[in-house]
């Protein structure tokens, strides 16, 4: 579904990604784990066209997207839940959700999707008229995921959804990610919380210093000695 081949991305003259290759197949949950500054967020921003790669190809459903602007990429069905959630604080919860559907033309289905989202996160229905900035961290993460889902993506990119949240909320968020995947959305999950991420993922990649070091099924990565030492703290 999504194929990255030899992708190099730079910030000025600092190279952040070095020859990244990765595949995501339809229906999978794929996770990318790595330490702070390894290039996880950059990978997502490169896929979305916010920081275009200097070289290499990115193909989504066999179409090259590495030179498209973000709005065209979103239109093709890739939505991102960015790190830090980036809720619009002075817009209501409802307005935040409506903006998730900004590019959609099938207005009649948007109401149905709202119902779906409110069934996943009933708390958002209660808070629909509140400003986004008044929500708690966990609620903001739920809103950020919901906003991305409102675009009806076929590929959902998640950047550290567990960051700064209480363990009970993290479990809830990961359950929802699993459910969203079972309902038909492919998920690419970037996480520092490798343990949780590998538990729900099918496959995983390990990134270090901007390069992919390891690629395997999630099960095997969980048992891998080096991964356990470096990322699982065991």
């Amino acid at each position, binding site marked *: 579904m999504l194929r990255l081949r030899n992708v190099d991305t730079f910030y000025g003259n600092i190279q952040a990604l070095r020859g990244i290759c990765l595949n995501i197949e339809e229906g999978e949950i794929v996770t990318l784990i790595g330490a702070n500054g390894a290039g996880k967020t950059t990978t997502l921003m490169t896929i979305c066209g916010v920081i275009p790669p200097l070289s290499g190809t990115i193909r989504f459903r066999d179409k090259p997207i590495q030179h498209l602007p973000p709005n065209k990429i979103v239109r093709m069905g890739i939505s991102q839940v960015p790190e830090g959630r*980036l809720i619009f604080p002075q817009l209501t919860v409802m307005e935040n959700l*409506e903006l998730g559907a900004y*590019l959609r033309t099938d207005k009649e289905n948007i109401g149905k999707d709202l119902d779906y989202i409110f069934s996943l996160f009933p708390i958002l229905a209660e808070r629909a008229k509140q400003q986004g900035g008044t929500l708690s961290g966990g609620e*903001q993460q739920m809103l950020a995921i919901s906003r991305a889902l409102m675009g009806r993506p076929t590929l959902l990119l998640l950047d550290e959804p567990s960051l700064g949240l209480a363990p009970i909320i993290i479990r809830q968020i990961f359950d929802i990610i699993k459910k969203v995947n079972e309902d038909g959305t492919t998920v690419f999950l970037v996480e520092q919380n490798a343990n949780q991420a590998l538990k729900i993922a099918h496959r995983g990649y390990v990134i270090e210093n901007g390069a992919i070091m390891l690629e395997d099924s999630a099960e095997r990565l969980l048992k891998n000695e080096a991964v356990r030492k470096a990322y699982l703290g065991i």
Partner: protein
Amino acid sequence: MNSELQYFFELVFSGITKGSIYALIALGYTMVYGIIELINFAHGEIYMIGAFTGLIVAGLLGIFGFPLLGVLAIAVICAIIWCAAYGYTIEKVAYRPLRNAPRLSPLISAIGMSIFLQNYVQLAQTSDFLPFPQLIPDFEFLDSIAYIVSSTDVVIIVLSAVVMTALHCFIKYTNMGKAMRATAQNRKMAMLLGIDADSIISVTFVIGSALAAIGGVLIASRMGSIDAYIGFLAGMKAFTAAVLGGIGSIPGAMFGGLVLGCCENLAAGYISSDYADVFAFLILVLILTFRPSGIFGRAPVQKV
């Protein structure tokens, strides 16, 4: 009504009239600042170009003997289109190439644009005062209140109120309006939702310029004369109004304009008309000293 009270109301109403115009111009400053954090110093010049466009169009139509209301309507519409084109072009030429430059660069570019436009209008038109025809008709049914507020002022106040209400509804309820607010709050996130930030920024300049054009034609018709320099003072006053209301805040700009117009007029009426401008800028100094975020502005809060 005793004459003291009548004098007071006269001052207040003409203050509201001036204030409505300040508000119309201030909206352009505040909307642009809200989205790209740039004080668009060329904005006052847009207002001046609006007045000139109104003058030229009204002159042409006058030759053909159009009815007064028709002339006003066509002059305003032409000024809106012409100024919107200027606003769009200025953004594209002077600010867009500097989008990722340090913040000082577009500011300098804005000042340069302002000087350029002033001089260009001087060359293309004239540097002298030009008489501006009275385009706003006198309505007889307003005669009964003419001793405190003139028919012209009523028209300006009502028109500005209608325009600002329309803007408010546009920003609050349309998809484009929501996208504008989203872009103002977080441009990167707006892009990730598929909002084309560049076209939102263009739309912001177009709307701001259109509002300034309306202000330009209306106030020129009230004042009765224009020259190539009116943009500077009006721009400064409107900027003061935007800061007073809280720069970046749309209701703030409307409210700030009205407060500034009234304060200035009351000071002029009770102290000395020579001091009108002094009071306007005294407000700017006071607000920057004691409440730099303005009346409606808020200091940014980040939740972690």
